[in-house]
């Protein structure tokens, strides 16, 4: 099962839409609430990353009975040093974004913490592709 969302850069007002919808589906599938929470947190972080840093992007969510794979593909500045970006507290967010309560530099590390696999591909000046995988606990 596959669902796709389009994300506009800078549109903080609607950020969180994808995570709410995915959450409902996971609840219907009887996924463990602690898994749902992790997925929703990771997805929300990644969604906000696109809104905060990129021009536009898509989120493709693929669900099967064992796992969820979320691919976030954006057109944006890309990440120059992925290892640095993974560090807690590191942020390139503008002060405007920080004033809105985002951009604390916890994004990528938080996504990693809440997922089983995190793959980042990025080309500076073109964009970033995040692949988040989370396996469901057996019920």
């Amino acid at each position: 099962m596959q669902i796709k969302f389009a994300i506009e850069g800078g549109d903080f007002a609607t950020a969180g839409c994808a995570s709410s919808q995915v959450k409902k589906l996971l609840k219907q599938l009887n996924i463990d609430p602690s898994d749902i929470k992790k997925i929703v947190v990771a997805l929300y972080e990644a969604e906000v990353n696109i809104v905060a840093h990129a021009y536009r992007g898509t989120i493709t969510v693929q669900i099967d009975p064992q796992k969820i794979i979320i691919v976030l593909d954006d057109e944006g500045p890309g990440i120059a040093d992925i290892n640095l970006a993974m560090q807690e507290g590191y942020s390139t967010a503008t002060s405007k974004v920080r004033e809105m309560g985002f951009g604390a530099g916890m994004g990528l590390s938080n996504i990693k913490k809440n997922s089983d696999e995190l793959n980042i591909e990025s080309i500076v000046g073109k964009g970033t592709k995040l692949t988040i995988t989370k396996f469901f606990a057996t019920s």
Partner: protein
Amino acid sequence: MDQIHFHHALKVDLQKCFGCTHCLQVCPTEAIRIYKGKANIREGRCVDCGECMRSCPVNAFYIEQDDLNLIHNYRHRVVLFPSVMIGQFPIKITQEQIYNALLKIGFTHVYEVEQPIEILMEAREEYFADPSHSRPFISTYCPAVVRLIQVRYPSLVDHLVHIKVPQDLSAIYIKEKLLLQGAKEEEIGIFYITPCAAKIAAVKSPVGEKQSIVNGVINMKEAYNRIMTLIKQEGCKEELPGFFGRITREGMLWPLTNGEASLFKGRAFAIDGIQNVIQFLELIENEEAPDIDFLEMRSCDESCAGGILLSGNRFLTVQNLIKRATKFPSARTTKELNLIVDIEKIKQLLQTDKIKPRSMLILDTDRARAYEKMQKARTIMCHLPAIDCGSCGAPSCMALAEDMVQHKAKMSDCIFMQQLWQHEGKIHPEKAFHNVEKKWGQNRFKPNCNKKGAKNEGL
């Protein structure tokens, strides 16, 4: 899901209901379906919030209640009522008159439920101080919110404050007091005047409690009418009947919005209105909310002042109650109260059993089957019109698709599909008509000039 029997206070009067679908659209848990032209409430989903009752144009929803004559089975007849009840009486009617009217009705003891609030406040402080309890704490004051969390936000049940509410506090306190004064347990009858359906359901099948201490429930609308009639016809004395004792300003204002949040030492939020509550629970569940320690959440706009069994305007009720409350003292410590009851014992009785989730969203407990059903429902959605018209008897096309995969509905319930199939010659018009009649009742297509807005309205 361990609670098999689940009590509901909201019922549908099948004589009055004509399946107008207003209630379908407003139900926050999609608990209503129309069947044979009448609204049906799915018991497991309903949280007794009363939104359906509010939206009904023909008053087809009613709230079951106990017979007032039941009180005469007891020697000590205690009436408990939330202080918000007082707020709906014109300000020139005194509290003394209201109390005396309740005595005239036949009660022997008259108490507001929010007392002695100090015991509850201290029991909650002790609960909040325990670091093993999950933050943000979510108040259990509004039973509709507790049930909403159980069915829609199962991951948040641990955040519910596992301490009972004022209606239990006063019932426990009064009972203990009467027992100490020599009354026999079987002689004590405790009756609760309720502002809403959810509190009736909470009394009849309490969440996190084995059995309710309350013996009966009285509809506040009925109590209001009885009291008003007595005051108007017979006048009621202004002398104190001697029960004011323990009510405080904090207790009086507890049922209003911010009644609890304003007492919390820390970051507290008060949210009222069921849609607002839902929006905020989504934030909490997604961990998108800012740091909050305590959440007061009430299903009704303006909290209990907006309860479906209250008469009068909710904003005026709030003002009225605030005005009356200024006459009462502030809460003190339980030590200063010099109560005859054992405070520690009452605090112990105020603990609730663990509140368990009972998610109603799950398509199947077996995940592989749930997945299959979800895929099927999503394929069905390709064909449904997605206008959520309610003509199929379900609140939305998605709800119909989910009902279909649960074998509770058919594709032919959709009138769009019926039209299409007739157009394609796949179904005989006679058969299509029969299908709609099955959903909406045989007389559905006969003109009725007595209906609201029609030529002979109400005749």
